[in-house]
């Protein structure tokens, strides 16, 4: 039976500000979903809430993995259950080598029952695998020895996220603007790699403002989020429409949501 990730009436707050106001979404393994929406509409928030970020409080609703609510699980338990997110802005961890980090990560995700201190996957096996993946992503072998996201260029950072996706082989992956900050060649490489790693295999939730990534990974569904709610769902032609014409039609058609979105944007700017 295929794995299913289902989000039901999800409300998420940061502090006392409600960002997501009842999101519904259902994904089956092997499907690709595009999640689109203007800046500040709540795309990253949805991803981070699914991954279990401690600052994102789910005040209502459920996230179900094969029918089981995962809201009470820690991020590491969610990862071990097969959920992955490539972050829009990955954080640097000085002094921690990519290889060391990834070996722990890979071991844990592959042996979800592993306790701290138990054996890691054999060095040889790990090395072979990471090397192959790095070659495919055209990454220098030195890269494994660098510190996690520390001083990475925008492109390197995104590539490192894809490398993790390749190593961890999740059931569901949220890719949050994994194509941004890349030059044209790098976007093509990233798009092709994601296709090889996960398209038609994993459940992919692709958040993007560009068209290349979706051209290589045509979505079965496109969801438009505005003001913390999914206002419209369509096929891949909806993504094409938004790429070509922007969000004017959506804003006009859903004035309530547009208002919420604008207000929260203005608020965010005031804070800055």
């Amino acid at each position, binding site marked *: 039976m295929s794995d299913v990730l289902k989000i039901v009436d999800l409300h998420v707050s940061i502090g006392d500000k409600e960002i997501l106001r009842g999101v519904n979404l259902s994904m089956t393994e092997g499907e690709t979903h595009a999640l689109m929406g203007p800046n500040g509409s709540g795309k990253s928030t949805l991803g981070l809430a699914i*991954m*279990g*970020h*401690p*600052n994102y409080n789910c005040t209502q609703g459920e996230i179900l993995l094969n029918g089981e609510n995962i809201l009470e699980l*820690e*991020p*590491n338990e*969610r*990862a*071990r259950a097969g959920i*992955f*997110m490539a*972050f829009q802005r*990955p*954080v640097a*961890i*000085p*002094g*921690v*080598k990519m*290889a*060391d*980090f*990834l*070996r*722990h*990560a890979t071991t*844990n*995700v592959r042996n979800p029952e592993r306790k*701290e*201190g*138990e*054996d*890691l996957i054999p*060095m040889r096996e*790990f*090395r072979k695998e*990471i*090397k192959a993946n790095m070659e495919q992503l055209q990454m220098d*072998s*030195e890269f*494994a*020895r660098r*510190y*996690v996201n520390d001083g990475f260029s925008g492109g390197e950072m995104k590539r490192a996220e894809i490398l*993790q996706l390749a190593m*961890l082989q999740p059931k569901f992956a949220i890719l949050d603007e994994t194509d941004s900050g890349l030059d044209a060649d790098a976007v093509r490489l990233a798009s092709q790699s994601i296709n090889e790693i996960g398209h038609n295999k994993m459940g992919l939730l692709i958040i993007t403002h560009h068209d290349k990534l979706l051209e290589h990974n045509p979505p079965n569904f496109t969801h438009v989020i505005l003001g913390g709610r999914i206002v419209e769902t369509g096929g891949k032609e909806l993504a094409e429409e938004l790429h070509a014409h922007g969000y004017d039609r959506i804003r006009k058609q859903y004035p309530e949501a547009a208002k919420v979105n604008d207000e929260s944007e203005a608020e965010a700017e005031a804070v800055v």
Partner: protein
Amino acid sequence: MSTELTESQELKSTEINKYDFKTETTAVFKARKGIDAEIVNQISDIKNEPDWMRKFRLEALEIFESKPMPKWGGDIDLDFQDIFYYLKPTTDQGKSWDDVPEEIKDTFEKLGIPEAERKYLAGVKAQFESEVIYGSLKKDLSDQGVIFTDTDTAVREHPELLREYFGKVIPSADNKFAALNSAVWSGGSFIYVPPGVSIEFPLQAYFRINEENMGQFERTLIIVDEGAQVHYVEGCTAPMYTSESLHSAVVEVVVKKNARCRYTTIQNWANNIYNLVTKRAFAYQDGTMEWVDGNLGSKLTMKYPAVYMMEPGARGEILSIAFSSKGQHQDAGAKLVHCAPDTTGTIISKSISKNGGRSSYRGLAKVEKGAVNSKCSVVCDALILDDASRSDTYPYIEINEQDVSMGHEASVSRIGEEQLFYLMSRGLSEAEASTMIVNGFIEPLVKELPMEYAVEMNRLIQLQMEGSVG
């Protein structure tokens, strides 16, 4: 091979109590508790010392008694009369581990010393309570005139050499604890490296306190002659008791022209040890002194390794890591004194506090008049793991010359929520993730250590991290 990846070190849970075990031994001689002239004389008698050393001790005792307790640093709640100052564990020092009494040999086996010796050391000294019970030095080194012995033996066998430097870098009157050590010192290492001799592998000393209420007062003197090089490593542990023990060492280092000395400490004292240590080096023309100081454990550590750059071109480098957990206070730091032109000093200090632990960085950077064109840089970073823990910085800077460059940076950070989340989102448990972040934080220092010690350091950090979780 450029694709080579680093092997991470994982700690098995069975190793957690690796250092906390007590050995049943029968001492050859144990002085009564307390300190006075009678005890000092008794120590001198047993060691059959020359008069000058007896006088040196008795004078130091007077200084100790006359000096007040330091008013800064940590809280010292010690009854000096409730401590054993001298315990001789065995009659003779072993030249082979087979000569060492079985129980004591077992102790060091458990601590992995003989194994390390076989694998990568040029020489070893093992001190149990007050005396060095085992010593070795590779033959090619002794053939080249290298001396690596315990300090008591040096008093007998190398009297002129020892007397020329003993107590000269750190006079008894330097501070109360230096005076105490000078009065009751026993054991420690004496090293002399002749001109031009470069020792490739480290010389290591291991200090073990076993008894409750014991005081350990080793005295180390290292002389690196012109153009010579040595790396000395010390490790220290003790089992856990309910009442306090005291470790108060004095370490003097003389680095002559063009010579180089690196002194690495990896201490992991039990939580009831007061660790009050004075360490100082004089570096002469173009000589380099490096202190690498890893402070884990103890109830209170007060330790500020110092480099006095005495002649032009001398360099001093101090790298220190302090880790304090529940009930612990690490008051650690460093001291650089530029006494001559064109001298260069660096301090890099990293501290980690967790579970209510307290770390303080206390450092002095001083440029004397005339030390023109000297450069001094101080960087101290503190990482605090939770709200119950604390970190303070006390930097003292004293510049008495115009033409110098002085840099000072300090940062305090909390373990990043975003960093934890990132690692956890990749399947690492919270404990695993924090350990990784902490190890990353000290990585710039750890990578300076030879492989074996880097591994040891990471293990110890992991032990400390696990201490809180379990």
